[in-house]
């Protein structure tokens, strides 16, 4: 070991630059990959909506002045039902991917006391219209759907259907059916009894880090009261989606068009289009961050390669001498690889500390979350293999130095 460390110490500049470079690259890569993972969450998580191309969503219907009363929305819903090719319709307060109208809040599992921030979707036929997969329990009954809320509905008690992820969060290890969820800390907060559990339903509030709570959603039956931005989810039978969409637009314009806010135009899209549009910025930043990571790693690779080949070239004569004294090619190769491992390892160690420090600083000043420790060994592994890759070429060249070099004047 001494014969590796000693020359590194005597010629400090080159090894120092390698260590610095690796440390910085490691710190950047860990943090960027962490951001990248967070950005991937909404793209990779299933949203629970079946056949997104056959679901038409009418959203950004904003009422001018007072919100439409539930009776008006039900009339519009009935009119949509009459459109040929429509198999299910639901009015709702908001939907997955509809971020301009959101209902979110902290809820507490009664008995367990566990809390979660969840999205609430209030609508009369949402399970059917969205095509959610019920895993346990039942859908809302006709009488439950018929509820009339004086206010939005968040403070009222009644039944609820929740996602499996939320069920496991609030009632770990147990059966959530029949349990009660309190909607907020208030003494007279609404109490919702779980009657069904669905496989997935994505929330519509995206924040910096949705890794844990992306699938926390609750469904309430009925139509939100005093709600100025209702949404219509219209499930088609699959044929002539474009035609149905036109009919949906015409129907809603006829029913509600006169009371729409001027200057904000409603959207009539398939759910697939809406999803594409809403996730575009996540896709864009995934590409950006992936590009940054690749460039960082390539630059580091090139840097280590350049420095090592110079370092090897400098020592051609010494290598020749060692070969003449009986060192095998594999010895030279191993030594250079070990040397690189030492330097990169030191860099990685520094880099991991730096990555953690940067993360702490970012957490304090921006709304970022803690870097999971799993990133540290991962980042170390990536950079150590990168270092080995970079040293391979120069090391092979060094191993090929013939012993006769030792006899020549340099």
């Amino acid at each position, binding site marked *: 070991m001494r014969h590796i460390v000693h020359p590194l110490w005597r010629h400090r500049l080159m090894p120092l630059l390698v260590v610095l470079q690796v440390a910085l690259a490691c710190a*950047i890569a860990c943090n960027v990959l962490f951001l990248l993972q967070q950005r991937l969450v909404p793209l990779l998580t299933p949203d629970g909506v079946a056949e997104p191309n056959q679901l038409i969503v009418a959203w950004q219907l904003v009422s001018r002045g007072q*919100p439409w009363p539930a009776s008006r929305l039900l009339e519009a819903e009935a009119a949509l039902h009459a459109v040929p090719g429509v198999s299910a319709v639901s009015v709702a307060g908001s939907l997955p991917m509809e971020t301009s109208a959101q209902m979110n809040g902290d809820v507490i599992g009664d008995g367990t006391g566990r809390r979660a921030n969840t999205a609430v979707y209030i609508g009369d036929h949402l399970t059917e219209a969205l095509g959610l997969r019920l895993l346990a329990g039942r859908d809302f009954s006709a009488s439950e759907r018929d509820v009339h809320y004086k206010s939005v509905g968040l403070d009222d008690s009644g039944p609820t259907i929740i996602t499996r992820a939320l069920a496991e969060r609030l009632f770990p290890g147990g059966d959530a059916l029949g349990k009660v969820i309190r909607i907020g800390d208030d003494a007279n907060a609404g109490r919702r009894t779980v009657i069904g559990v669905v496989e997935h339903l994505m929330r519509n509030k995206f924040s910096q880090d949705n890794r844990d709570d992306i699938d926390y959603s609750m469904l309430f039956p009925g139509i939100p009261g005093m709600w100025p931005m209702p949404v219509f989810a219209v499930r088609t039978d699959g044929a002539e989606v474009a035609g149905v969409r036109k009919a949906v637009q015409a129907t809603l314009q006829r029913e509600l068009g006169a009371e729409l806010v001027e200057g904000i135009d409603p959207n009539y899209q398939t759910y697939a289009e809406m999803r594409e549009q809403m996730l575009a910025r996540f896709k864009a930043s995934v590409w950006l961050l992936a590009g*940054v990571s690749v460039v960082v790693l390539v630059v580091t690779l090139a840097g280590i390669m350049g420095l090592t080949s110079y370092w090897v070239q400098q020592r051609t004569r010494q290598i020749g001498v060692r070969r003449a004294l009986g060192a095998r090619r594999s010895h030279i190769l191993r030594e250079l690889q070990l040397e690189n491992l030492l330097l990169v390892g030191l860099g990685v160690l520094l880099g991991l500390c730096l990555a953690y420090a940067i993360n702490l600083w970012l957490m304090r000043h921006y709304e970022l979350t803690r870097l999971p420790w799993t990133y540290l060994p991962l980042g170390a592994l990536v950079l150590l293999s990168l270092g080995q890759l970079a040293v391979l070429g120069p090391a092979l060249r060094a191993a090929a130095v013939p012993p006769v070099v030792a006899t020549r004047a340099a």
Partner: protein
Amino acid sequence: MFGYYLRLALRRCRQNLPMLSLLVLTMAIGVAACMAALTIATTLSGEPLPGISAHLYVASMDAHEPGDRDNERQAVPDSYLRLSDAKALVDTGRARQQAALAQSLQQVGNPDGRQSDQVMGLMAYGPLPDMLGVALRHGRSWMPAEQSSRAPVVLIDADLAQKLFGTDDAVGRNVAMGKHVYRVIGVIAPWSPRMQFLDVSRNLGSVLGQNEQFFVPVEAALDGGVGPLTSGECSKDAAVVSFQSAEVGQCRWLEVWLALDGTAAVADYQRFLFGYAQAQHDAGRFAHPPQARLYDASGWMTANHVVPDDVRLNVMLAGAFLLLCMINVAGLLAARFLRRQADVAIRRALGASRRQVFAQHLIETGLIGLIGGLIALPLTWCGLWIVRQQPVSYAVAADFSGMVFAGLLLLSLAVGLVVGILPAWRICRLPPALQIKQA
């Protein structure tokens, strides 16, 4: 000497082209990433209204009343007040100037209805156009008497005047807005702040300033059914939020902005504001301790994340990346220089001083930096183009300009020189005799 060293540097650059291209490319990528991020960040920083917003402050307090819908205590209070509180603060007149405001989106047309346009504007109580330094092309702003008598008057901007009447000078004409007709008493030059800092929650997601095309006294506006874009938070029996409604008597929807000069005036007003809010709380009107406080314009923008965090995070990421590239280039340069130890030793033996050797190598790295800058130019342009294609609110800020070009060349020259210091210092310190002997 400079010219000679430059010629030498050029000659050397031609000698080892693969190495040179690696150096230059690494530097160019780092500089381009940094420049693209900096361009966006500088466009989105600084004063939203140069020369004016530095003196502007907004009042914030927890003005929730016991009957409000959402009655939780605010950790950090917002700036929205009921009309009565806004009027009380403005009428007290403790600041140099003060006005309350709210953004509105309206269909404004000429009375016969032949021409109309959907425009953003501000509803105001107090001398708002004057306080914001809005330039008048024709006519005047409203008088206190007009404001208190609820006279239906309005200021429109020159673009709207052109569109509705075919002329800039629309003073004296009437426009239809809401249910009433308003008399145009002034025409302003088209006005928008650099960034949106007024009434940030009604900005519809824009970072860059809204073009405010009309200014109307608030009570005359409400009389004619002209309300704010959204109602803000209202009492329990009203909708969660309503749009374009003039029924906002039970809502908190106006912001009060103040023009204050000097820290003494700010501290004084802060005390006054605190006293006002506390008195409301003590009287049982405000449900929670009001935590009244003044924010300056830029502090308010920061507190409300008007400029997305991404912008500054990207600058830091790009900065870290440039640093990585610089360390990388410094290493490669050191290797490049040290390969020529023998040449340098001979020059030193022939009488060149350390300083001359240092200068020679620094000129070489400066040259490499400049070449890197030239290559970074298309890369930066390309990077900004990519940002403009992205679905982000600040995409329009990614604009390539002459300033960017100048900044780019300066940055790359500086980077080239900084990066060269270590290798050049290393090589000029080598003792000449030893090197010649080894060679």
